[in-house]
């Protein structure tokens, strides 16, 4: 196999993935606010309008309901729309279309109608932004049958998962960890890593405590694992990657060895992804558990003003504190 490797930031990897999808399939369209000439506020669609034209890279009117609703129509007509929502906090005008229409069309039509729509949403905090620009709304979507939800944590997954999502036939909400847009990695642009879109993955082996996380917190947890080594604690880190459906087999396998699980996410705690993971692990691994499942998350408040977001967001110390709590039993 030849390899065509390139060092890319996560944002550039997404851009390369979009480009590849547009080259491979003329039915793929980009649509959203400022995605054309500007290339999106994070430049994820940079250069695409120039190369693929205004018919395929559409600067839409400023209306998220319109973006999602017209994507439904375009999809019914055989296109594969990739919608960009500018920031996490602005998806809600389109939420009705997503929940009542996109999520149910296949079901309602007895499987006759397919909506291969991808909705890209930059999410999460840690960038010092004003309100509505730092939220983690993934659970709202994961709670909705009919939608699939995935999130990438590194440039390689950004590049491949996005292409896999675009070529899939179900509607997929694709969450992009915006504070990691500028993290770099070497990406093999030609050879698919072979892992499925809806598969989670152990990203660091360990033996004392299992840490399950996703998106922006994967890096934080990997750093925590390095710090934990100093105290002779070995953390196994799992990048969930897919939030709906969840793929917890690697988590069960790990917890059966470690007996302890910490789930980490930025989103608020109550009825978050961690809650579902805890419930399922309790069902599947009850006799292996040495401690209750610990959740390290944002608090159950609106996202706070930027100057105190560091105290709201889980960080390395809070992950280690969660590990301590799991080990205290």
């Amino acid at each position, binding site marked *: 196999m030849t390899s065509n490797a390139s060092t890319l930031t996560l944002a550039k990897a997404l851009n390369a993935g979009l480009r590849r999808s547009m080259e491979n399939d003329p039915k793929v369209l980009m649509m959203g*606010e*400022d995605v*054309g*000439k*500007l*290339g999106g*506020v994070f430049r994820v669609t940079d250069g695409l309008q120039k190369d693929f034209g205004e018919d395929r890279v559409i*600067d*839409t*009117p*400023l*209306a998220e*309901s*319109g973006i999602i609703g017209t994507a439904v129509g375009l999809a019914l007509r055989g296109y594969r729309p990739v919608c960009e929502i500018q920031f996490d*906090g*602005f998806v*809600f*005008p389109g939420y009705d279309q997503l929940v009542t229409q996109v999520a149910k069309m296949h079901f309602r039509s007895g499987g006759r109608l397919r909506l291969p729509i991808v909705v890209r949403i930059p999410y999460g905090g840690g960038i*010092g*932004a*004003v*309100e*509505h620009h730092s939220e983690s709304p993934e659970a709202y979507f994961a709670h909705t049958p009919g939608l699939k939800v995935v999130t990438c944590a590194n440039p390689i997954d950004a590049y491949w998962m996005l292409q896999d999502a675009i070529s899939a036939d179900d509607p997929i909400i694709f969450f992009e960890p915006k504070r990691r847009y500028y993290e770099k990695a070497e990406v093999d642009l030609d050879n698919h890593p072979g892992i499925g879109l809806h598969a989670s993955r152990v990203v660091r082996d360990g033996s004392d405590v299992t840490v399950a996380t996703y998106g922006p917190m994967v890096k934080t947890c990997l750093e925590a694992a390095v710090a934990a080594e100093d105290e002779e604690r070995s953390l196994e880190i799992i990048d969930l990657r897919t939030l709906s459906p969840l793929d917890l087999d690697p988590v069960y396998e790990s917890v059966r060895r470690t007996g302890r699980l910490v789930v980490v996410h930025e989103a608020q*705690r109550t009825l978050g992804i961690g809650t579902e993971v805890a419930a399922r692990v309790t069902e599947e691994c009850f006799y292996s558990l040495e401690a209750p499942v610990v959740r390290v998350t944002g*608090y*159950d*408040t*609106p996202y*706070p*003003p*930027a*100057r*105190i*977001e560091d*105290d*709201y967001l889980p960080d390395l*110390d*809070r992950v280690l*504190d969660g590990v301590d709590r799991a080990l205290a039993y």
Partner: protein
Amino acid sequence: MTVDTAATSNRGAADGEPELVQLLTPEGQRIPHERYDALIDDITADEIRGFYRDLVLSRRIDSEAVSLQRQGELGLWASMLGQEAAQVGSSRALRRQDHVFPTYREHAVAWCRGVDPAQLLGLFRGVDQGSWDPAQNNFHLYTIVIGAQTLHATGYAMGVQRDGANGTGDPDRDAAVIAYFGDGATSQGDVSESFIWASVNNAPVVFFCQNNQWAISEPLERQTRVPLYRRAHGFGFPGLRVDGNDVLACLAVTREALQRARDGEGPSLIEAFTYRMGAHTTTDDPTRYRLDTELEHWRLKDPIERVKAYMIRSEMADQAFFEQIEAEADDMAERLRRECRALPDPAPDSIFDQVYVDTPPTLLAQRDEMVRYLDSFADEEASR
């Protein structure tokens, strides 16, 4: 007030732009208007000087905020450079009892309503999400989610109506509501819905759209094929376009629309035709999507220069006056910088205080958990 009846109007038609209400030309000539002269014939030279002061001081708040952002004191700023006349003219038409629902860019409106400029900075510094008391100045919190506030304004106006607080003929009682929003916002469903609600309820609300020609990188053509003000007719209420860089014209048309609302005659739409001279926000790079020539064209229509020219032309002010305003702006800027740097960060556990009126014990438990966690670091420090 002096009106130059010989002057010809430059209402934009020459630029291929549709007719708009204009009372002051970019050169500072006061041109007559059949309908709107009467709406501002009470305006004294003192008040004109006051408008000039509003324009200059609010522009200074804006430029200081841009520098404070550059210095790292603010996380972000949304500059209103170029839109001062639309904001000052419209808000000087308000009475004390009227209510304002702004976007995130209404800094000159906030100024005219008496909001402390340092309080405006908190949201952008990242220490709060709007620290002023909306009831104090009838100036609601900034709304960032595009268009949402137009519905709030309409509902508020429906409340005014139910309270019998309009249509009584009492100038100190009758109230109106004004909703500010941008050209891009007109595409949001919320804005169309607010037009419908206002129309069918005959609600006392004025929709004040600052068409600054851009929604981040998207030019007006991405949002509409008809001039925005014409949308109103389809919803069943009047709409007009005004020169948004003309403080007097903005004052006149907003006075008329607010009075309609106060008198119980229903909503109106005003499209203030203006230009966003700066970047969308301090994180934006407009060179990626627009040409400098456009900026040059609009620089000639500067909202402050034309008032100054008018005042000089009609001998309403001398050099000493302009110098005095400059000095006042310098003082205010100095105070703003000082007060911005002094804005305290909130206590981390304060995030739990205002989520609910009646805080549930589960949330109090989370607060205790946070406090215990943060205290564990203090203990570590102490034991070192």
